[in-house]
């Protein structure tokens, strides 16, 4: 780490030294009242010619060292680079549904949407993600719906199963339904950054505000972190952390 830092500061140090040296040199020449000549102008005096050559040589040297320094930095960084891109994604296992995905995204509406993993869904009649907590009559009436924008659709399939679908353009990514589904159901509703909407900021502004540290950069080739199978933790009772 230290060595790396030293290499990094090296070109900068050279540049600073050069600048200082130049200043000093110019002061002395200033006091000698010598006239600095436009390099484009052809000069006859061999003394000045000599001077120009020396300057050119010095310039080339500095350029070479700057180039070398840049190359060094690049090499250090390239060592741990990836060819592909990285994109932001949130880990539903860490998500606490604080609502900031809806409010912190640079986009309005947010690029984070509720995603339904059908394979995990219990197709319940009383869906914790669809109905407001105190709902008595299980109908699609407005007073029963939990979703503030009515983006979660409910469709009867057969007794006693209902299918729930997310209408993405309406979804604002608030995570209300995710919380309800997680608390009472299987957790098949999960928040995810949708990459057809996300503009992939260099620093995701939701990630900065995420209280659960759920956001991370993931390879663009595998851009989703949906909880799927083999992820038994969330289904069963949590094992106590010891």
């Amino acid at each position, binding site marked *: *780490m230290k*060595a790396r830092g030293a290499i990094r500061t090296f070109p900068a140090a050279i540049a600073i030294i050069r600048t200082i040296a130049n200043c000093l040199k110019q002061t002395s020449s200033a006091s000698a009242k010598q006239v600095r000549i436009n390099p484009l102008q052809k000069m006859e005096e061999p003394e000045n010619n000599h001077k120009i050559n020396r300057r050119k040589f010095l310039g080339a040297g500095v350029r070479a060292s700057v180039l070398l320094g840049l190359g060094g930095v690049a090499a250090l960084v390239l*060592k*741990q680079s*990836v*060819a*592909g891109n990285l994109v932001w994604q949130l880990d539903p296992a860490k998500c606490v549904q604080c609502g900031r995905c809806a409010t912190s995204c640079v986009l*309005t*509406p947010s690029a984070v949407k509720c995603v339904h993993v059908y394979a995990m869904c219990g197709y319940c009649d009383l869906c914790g993600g669809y109905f*407001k907590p*105190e709902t*008595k*009559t299980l109908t699609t*009436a*407005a*007073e029963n719906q939990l979703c*503030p*924008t*009515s983006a979660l659709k409910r469709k009867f399939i057969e007794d006693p199963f209902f299918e729930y679908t997310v209408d993405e353009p309406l979804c604002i990514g608030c995570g209300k339904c995710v919380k309800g589904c997680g608390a009472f159901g299987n957790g098949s509703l999960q928040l995810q950054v949708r990459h057809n909407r996300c503009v992939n900021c260099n620093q995701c502004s939701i990630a900065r505000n995420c209280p659960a540290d759920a956001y*991370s*950069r*993931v*390879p663009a080739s*595998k851009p989703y972190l949906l909880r799927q199978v083999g992820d038994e*933790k969330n289904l069963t009772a949590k*094992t*106590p*952390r*010891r």
Partner: protein
Amino acid sequence: MTKLNSQDLNRYGRNVAIAGTPRGLSLLRNVAIIAGIFAMILCVLIIINYIQVKRADPLNTKTMKVLVDRMHADPADEQLRQEIREIDLLARRAFFTNQWQVRMGGYLLFFSLLVVVICVTAAGLMQKTIPAVPSGAKTDRWHTLKINRIWVGYTGISIVVISMAILILTHQELGRNLQEAINEQDHAGRPEGREAGMQESRNAELQNTGNGDSLVKKDTIAATERANMDGYPSLQEISRNFPSFRGPGGNGIARQKNIPVNWDGKSGKNIKWKTEIPLPGYNSPIIWNDRVFLTGASQTIRMVYCIDLHTGKILWQKAVEKIPGTPSQEPKIIKETGFSAPTMTTDGRRVYAVFANGDLIALDFAGNQVWAKNLGLPMNHYGHASSLIMYHDLLIVQYDQRGSGSVMALSGKTGEVIWKTSRSVKISWASPVIIQTGKRTELVLAADPMVASYDPATGKELWNFACITGEVGPSVAFAGNIVYSVNDFSKLAAIELGDPPKLLWEDTEYLSDIPSPLATGKHLYLVTSYGAVVCYDAKTGAKYWVQELETPVFASPVLAEGKIYLLDKKGVMHIFNDDQKFTPVSQPQLGEGSSCTPAFADGLIVIRGDKNLFCAGK
């Protein structure tokens, strides 16, 4: 210097005064003005819209909440129901309409501004005026500089003053508070939050069940120990287990008892269980309490397996993936090394595994990832091969690679690099070994050109001794203040520790390139990969005996209960006594080939074959 006259300008200027028609110009100006006014109106509208939404979020209106509450009180009120539905519809419409308005307003604003920009730019192009020589005298350079200096100086002073003001306003002493909080916790010696709750209830339970009950008490203490994910195991705890390649410290000595000497993998005699490991790997199993850990990998998949020591059931397996920094290209490997040559290690709190491509992962005992990172694709031609080892809570990684070899210690808890010492050595397969010299604990590494020792706590090099060349495969052995190092086409060197360390004896007749030597105190055992076992006097280097097994050996010998267990490539375990004479005890067969060093638990031996993991026990 005189002014140029217009003639000169006409002669020299290229872009001088393309006089625009006044009509065109005024048209542009008018368009720009209208567009500008339009933009301003839009701006105001958008701001008003914003403030409106800000003041009353249509999705979270109070009216709605009140109505819904009322409805819960009186579910039969049909009229109320209708009202709610209407308001809800209105609210949602308001929300989406507002979004639409803002978006459309934004577009309109943008295009009107674009029109302004285009008009003004076009007008500017048409109106290009004749450049004029600035009026007024030239400024005095020196005076200007002086003023600049003063301004810069004042700026500097004000920045310092502002910083100080901030310091006074927001003085926090956060660092000290944190440190105090940490100390307090260390002092209390118990975890926080929920854990603390658990602890308290445990204490309560202790009182409940009476103090005389030693079983519960002991168990409570054990549970507390387990609950503590910080800290590190004691040496006793380590030596009760088999936590790394070649056992505790990597010294090749197992302290377990009642190790079986007879079994047969084919007939199943004395075989407690046999479990197929889905992915191949040349790493050896490690054991902590009742769990066996090992890894397997193919070119693309890397897995960590946790196996129940008593049943052989795979308790969990964890795919090592999505590691930040995993290089997209696969490491170059050779067949004899594979994709998962390094053996795992554990500190009883977490297990750690590293793979040929430099993927390093820490998992808890339930198989959850604690942290993971990639150390960078190792620059050698066989992938990373050195095994891991723990010192206290530090995970030691020997990462000898072309150009930038290093040894580093990572915090087991967080994966943070605690120290990193660069090594100017060639590439190596060898694994780090931790030795107790009596005076101190040292971390000993072997790689061309030297055997080097480091302080495992700080990474400071303690000594080095140039005696070894080539791409070193065998790790060092240590006993009785002597470190033994060997490599093929180099030599076997016995180095007596001291200041400075000195060469005690050396031999070049038998040399190993894969199995590590084993020092038992009196004797040194050297096993060559073609199957010769040599017993030396530890102090003098005199050869006591040489035994040709006539099968290749890749595994390293391990001493357990005074017997040496050496597994050959065909799966035959050669068990013989640690003695001046070659006295074989038995030669049980595994029934399949193997390249891995066995692991030991009380009454049990765990052996990884080419396909299966075996556990033998009486």
